[in-house]
């Protein structure tokens, strides 16, 4: 468990399973035209990186999860994964 410092955060946002993904479907349909066969299940998403100052890793994760749930993802159609590393200056 890291101590006080600046943590690096990666938030990956993707559509919930079962929610149609027009972007992923279009990419998937385009691939064979480029000669790239055998690719299935393409899902498009977004990733965000930021830094957060926190007293420890648990607090960094908790607050980053609030950022992900309240702002970065729309929970109606999206879900997110939060990964915290650091602290850089410990």
């Amino acid at each position, binding site marked *: 468990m890291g101590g006080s410092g600046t943590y690096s955060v990666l938030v990956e946002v993707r559509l919930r399973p079962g*929610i149609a993904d*027009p972007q992923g479907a*279009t990419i998937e349909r385009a691939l064979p035209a480029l000669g790239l066969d055998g690719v299935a299940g393409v899902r498009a998403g977004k990733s965000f990186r930021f830094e957060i100052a926190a007293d420890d890793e648990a607090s960094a994760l908790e607050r980053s999860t609030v950022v992900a749930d309240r702002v970065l993802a*729309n929970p*109606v159609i999206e879900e997110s994964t939060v990964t915290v590393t650091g602290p850089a200056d410990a």
Partner: protein
Amino acid sequence: MAPRIGVVVFPGTNCEHDAAVAVERLGGRAELLWHGDPTVGGVDAVVIPGGFAHGDYLRPGAIARFSPVMEAVGEYAAAGGPVVGICNGFQVLTEAGLLPGALQKNQGLRFVCAAAGLRVETDRSVLTAGVEPGTVLSVPINHFEGNYTCDADTLSALRDEDRVVLRYVDNPNGSVDDIAGVCNEGRNVVGLMPHPERASDPLLGSADGVVLLEALLASAAGTTAARVA
């Protein structure tokens, strides 16, 4: 007295003057409400018009919902005030949690700009009161992210509670159950992707949006009367 219609302006909103002109030609008084002001200024109805609030960054409506005016709009809606979100305004209302569901990228990733046939499904909303259910209107749509999406439970609730306000005659964007507009449980908050203000004069190609705007003005006038009484 003419009902006062507040038209919310975010940075990137671009349909506020169209909405204001359409409302004024029908006898309302339009007032622009700046997104940074934490009040709706005592208006009789609120319109959140189309455009690209805050550049549509992150997701359409995702940043706009944190604007100070939206807290006031939320309180106004909770108190029963009529609120209508058009296009980007619909996206803002879903992001703000004032309406269920979300607006996804269109099926086929096509930006659609066309006249759409709309069927009025209920007259129990501030935007359709007095309009015969089954009426078909021709109203323009102009969007990339108008593909209405919600989970199965929400869809059942919308159907069972008669909260699907408008459906497309010919689904242009992949919206679930052909939904073009929905309302909240109180029926005073309505969101729709089509632009009634762009169908408010025969010169624009259609005046079919007038019945919807007139219904909103009547709802607004009703609030005024209630306040006076």
